[in-house]
């Protein structure tokens, strides 16, 4: 089907590649359109019991006692567990693949110990013969709570008079541990240059404050875990996770067994976006299985998912920017405070690294605050922290551009970070594509088409996100029929089996369809870090490349034996081995030969790559605001992004479109509503309003390719950065449409209307 692939080649065209840049149907596609693909909740090992978690009705309370006797005597109930059934791993930090976690906090989050820190905090879990019996029994557990005053707002929690969550939490103030307990877990600072001198050179200085609401990742598949603890001490866990190896480690630590005694079988995963890395149910299912001797499955309800998993922090931010008469940034200052939830560890560090990263900022100072509040433990969400920070920075830039009377994209081109730019937090950028992505936005048909009509406006914004490396492994076995079985450890959330297989196919000169990729359990492949940090196509793709190079070397050796030549005389090229005097065997011929004689050919790739290239995006959006209701409609949306090299352009586009739409939801509707008691009042998809098909136009992705010199095929991380620009771009568009500056997310109808009315009030003559 080479011609079909050629027809689908994307317009950039890769003359030098045969597979990269084409759009094959994904390998797991048929399973997923026929309902055969098995997700975490879809398995039913024989003899399986059902678990139901009892959760705290209070946002903040001390647990005086837990009486499980009534529940335990219910017919059909097999076991009940509380925090006492987990191992106390001690107050220590461990690296879990994407950031370090305090194990005691993790333990207390999985099942509350002496206190509950948020509504929905897990307290106990019942395993029973049916889900209905387990539900009834869970309701019979008596927990004696001493209800404590709660604090859910980040600014309120920073007040020294606020209710204290942890008596033993002392602020780490610029590296030094304080002496008084506080809700501020950490205050850190990044500095570069001389900020005061920078601002003194500025002609315009704009300083604004911002607030954003807590939002949820909103994956459609609820968290689930099924575990079987065998009498030989070996545990099997089936679950939907972004990282099977990090689940293995977390379960081992929390139940107290060596990692080799835990096998994690990653089932298909129904979305994660950063929210399916930390364990919630897996250790509970494991200890229930130990107590009952049967496999136990625990699945969350949607309300549980909202109240007890994810979300990503609400924030309070202040950004100050100075620009000289030539339109160059002279200095920037930012203060960013993030909700951490019930335990420390919000992604405020990443927010602080990202806030000025799109630009050459010669003098900068960034202060970050990690603040515990009575909300669920915050998690990563697609470019964690960057979206909040960009909302602040990119709307301040829009005000600066207005004062300077400069086109906002020209301003960005003028100040764009480039190779050699040092970020305020220290690192120096390698070759990056901020300039090119912004240029593509300026030159897009969208930006060149004037927007007309009442209450309509166009906004732009840019965004940055990292691309991490970390560890990945692949093994690739050559089959006699000329195909390759590819085994890998990265759980596939959005088509990465195919983007990895395509890099193997490209390297071997075979078709993508000739690779049979499989995501396997933790006993069957080398250690592989999480599917996160936009790393899988970059790093696991690199591992596949290495496995293919290993196969190339082995096939050269084999051909050398067959032809009685020295290996140095032979090369692997164009899908086969070539030698002097026209000697040539194709991959397929060699594969058949290998089957007849000698040892099998198995390629191995194990990487921990440096050379990550940062990802930049610039978005253009047209909106129409209903001035009577404050409702914002998206009329047109264009998203440009430097992707390095688009391995499978359709899935690159899909990441850009999906990320942009999550950003649109964050911008316009999504938020956690808490009442004064700290109870979330909108824990359903009806009331937590994510975008539907009807809310949106088509999203036009523009793929820009500035190959990453740090990767064999120039790959950059793609998945996360497209969520970053939308809230700021939409805020800037709303300003052009109705003249109000939005400094709070979401920009829901009531909030926009309030600003419109306030603007009318201040501009109309007083009577």
């Amino acid at each position, binding site marked *: 089907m080479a011609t079909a692939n050629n027809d689908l080649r994307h317009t950039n065209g890769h003359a030098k590649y045969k597979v990269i840049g084409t759009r094959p149907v994904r390998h797991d596609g048929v399973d997923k*359109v026929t309902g055969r693909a098995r*997700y975490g909740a879809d398995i039913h090992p024989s003899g399986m019991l059902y678990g139901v978690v009892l959760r705290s009705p209070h946002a903040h309370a001390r647990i005086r006692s837990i009486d499980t006797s009534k529940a335990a005597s219910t017919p059909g109930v097999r076991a009940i567990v509380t925090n006492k059934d987990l191992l106390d791993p001690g107050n220590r930090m461990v690296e879990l693949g994407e950031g370090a976690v305090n194990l005691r906090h993790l333990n207390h989050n999985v099942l509350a110990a002496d206190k509950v820190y948020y509504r929905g905090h897990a307290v106990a879990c019942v395993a029973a013969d049916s889900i209905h019996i387990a539900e009834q029994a869970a309701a019979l557990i008596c927990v004696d709570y001493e209800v404590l005053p709660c604090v859910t707002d980040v600014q309120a929690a920073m007040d020294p008079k606020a209710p204290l969550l942890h008596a033993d939490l002392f602020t780490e103030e610029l590296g030094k541990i304080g002496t008084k307990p506080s809700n501020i877990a950490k205050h850190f600072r990044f500095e570069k240059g001389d900020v005061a001198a920078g601002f003194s050179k500025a002609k315009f200085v704009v300083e604004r404050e911002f607030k954003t609401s807590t939002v949820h990742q909103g994956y459609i598949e609820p968290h689930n875990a099924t575990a079987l603890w065998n009498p030989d001490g070996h545990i099997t866990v089936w679950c939907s996770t972004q990282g099977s190896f990090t689940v293995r480690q977390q379960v081992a630590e929390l139940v107290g067994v060596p990692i080799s005694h835990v096998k994690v079988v990653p089932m298909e995963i*129904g979305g994660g976006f950063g929210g399916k890395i930390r364990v919630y149910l897996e250790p509970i299912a494991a200890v229930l299985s130990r107590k009952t001797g049967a496999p136990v499955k625990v699945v969350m309800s949607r309300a549980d998912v909202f109240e007890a998993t994810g979300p990503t922090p609400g924030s309070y931010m202040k950004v100050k920017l100075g620009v000289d008469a030539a339109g160059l940034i002279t200095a920037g200052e930012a203060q960013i405070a993030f909700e951490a939830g019930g335990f420390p560890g919000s992604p405020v560090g990443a927010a602080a690294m990202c806030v000025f990263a799109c630009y050459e900022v010669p003098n900068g100072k960034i202060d970050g605050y990690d603040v515990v509040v009575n909300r669920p433990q915050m998690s990563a969400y697609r470019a964690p922290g960057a979206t909040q920070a960009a909302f602040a920075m990119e709307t301040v830039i829009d005000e600066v551009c207005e004062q300077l009377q400069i086109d906002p994209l020209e301003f960005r081109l003028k100040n764009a970070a480039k190779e050699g730019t040092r970020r305020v937090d220290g690192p120096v950028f390698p070759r990056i594509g901020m300039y090119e992505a912004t240029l593509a936005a300026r030159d897009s048909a969208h930006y060149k088409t004037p927007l007309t009509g009442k209450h309509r406006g166009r906004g732009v914004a840019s965004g940055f996100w990292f691309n991490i490396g970390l560890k990945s492994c692949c093994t690739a076995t050559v089959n006699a029929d000329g195909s390759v079985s590819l085994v890998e450890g990265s759980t596939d959330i959005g088509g990465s089996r195919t983007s990895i297989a395509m890099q193997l196919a490209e390297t071997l000169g075979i078709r993508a369809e000739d690779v049979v990729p499989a995501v396997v359990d933790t006993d069957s492949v080398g250690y592989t870090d999480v599917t996160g940090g936009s790393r899988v196509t970059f790093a696991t793709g690199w591992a596949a490349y290495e496995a293919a190079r290993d196969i190339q070397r082995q096939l050269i050796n084999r051909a050398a034996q067959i032809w009685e030549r020295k290996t140095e005389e032979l090369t692997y090229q164009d899908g086969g081995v070539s030698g002097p005097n026209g000697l040539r065997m194709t991959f397929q011929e060699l594969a058949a030969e290998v089957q007849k004689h000698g040892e099998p050919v198995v390629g191995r790739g194990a990487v921990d790559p440096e050379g990550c290239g940062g990802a930049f995006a610039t978005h253009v959006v047209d909106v129409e605001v209903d001035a009577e209701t404050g409702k914002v409609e998206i009329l047109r949306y264009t998203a440009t992004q430097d992707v390095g090299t688009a391995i499978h352009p359709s899935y690159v*586009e899909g990441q850009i479109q999906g990320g942009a739409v999550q950003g649109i939801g964050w911008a316009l509707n999504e938020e956690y509503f808490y009442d004064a008691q700290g109870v979330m009042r909108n824990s359903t998809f009806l009331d937590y309003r994510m975008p539907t*098909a009807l809310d949106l136009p088509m999203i036009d992705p523009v793929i820009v390719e500035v190959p990453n010199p740090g990767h064999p095929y120039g790959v950059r991380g793609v998945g996360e950065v497209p969520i970053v620009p939308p809230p700021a771009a939409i805020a800037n568009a709303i300003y052009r449409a109705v003249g109000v500056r939005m400094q709070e997310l979401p920009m829901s109808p009531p909030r926009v209307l309030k600003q419109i009315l306030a603007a009318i009030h201040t501009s109309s003559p007083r009577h």
Partner: protein
Amino acid sequence: MAKKRVVSTTINGKSIELLCEPRQTLLEVLRDNLDLTGTKEGCSNGNCGACTVLMNGRPVVSCLVLAMEAEGASLETIEGVAQGGDLDPIQQAFLENAALQCGICTPGFIMSTKALLTENPNPTEQEARFYLAGNLCRCTGYDKIIRAVLDSAQRRQAALAAERQHS
């Protein structure tokens, strides 16, 4: 625990009798009693559409239907969409348009699309968006799903035209 009841129903063209508790939803019975796990659970309160099946040709969210209501009904689930080893044009269009990422919402979207194209064989983009507004997808931003739905309509029309020519 209430006594179990017998329900006689047709699923994907096959007549079956099943035992269920009166409180069990159709979704629970499909997934847990019958191992038809292609129908997904996303919210269990009718908001996400992941559990959409066709009941007497109409799309329903099976989490809001009691299994006992399926007595005498004809049900179609995602497992019954591909006929005789061939994918339905809708399934083919979803694959070729890269209309899925994680895939958890895909069965529900395919069932709703099937109902849409039965009611309205040639929908406009806006009509497709309206009809599918009860199915949530968090990965794709809907762009490629809507394209796949419009492409499915064309494929179906072409298939019907070819059939007419043959007969």
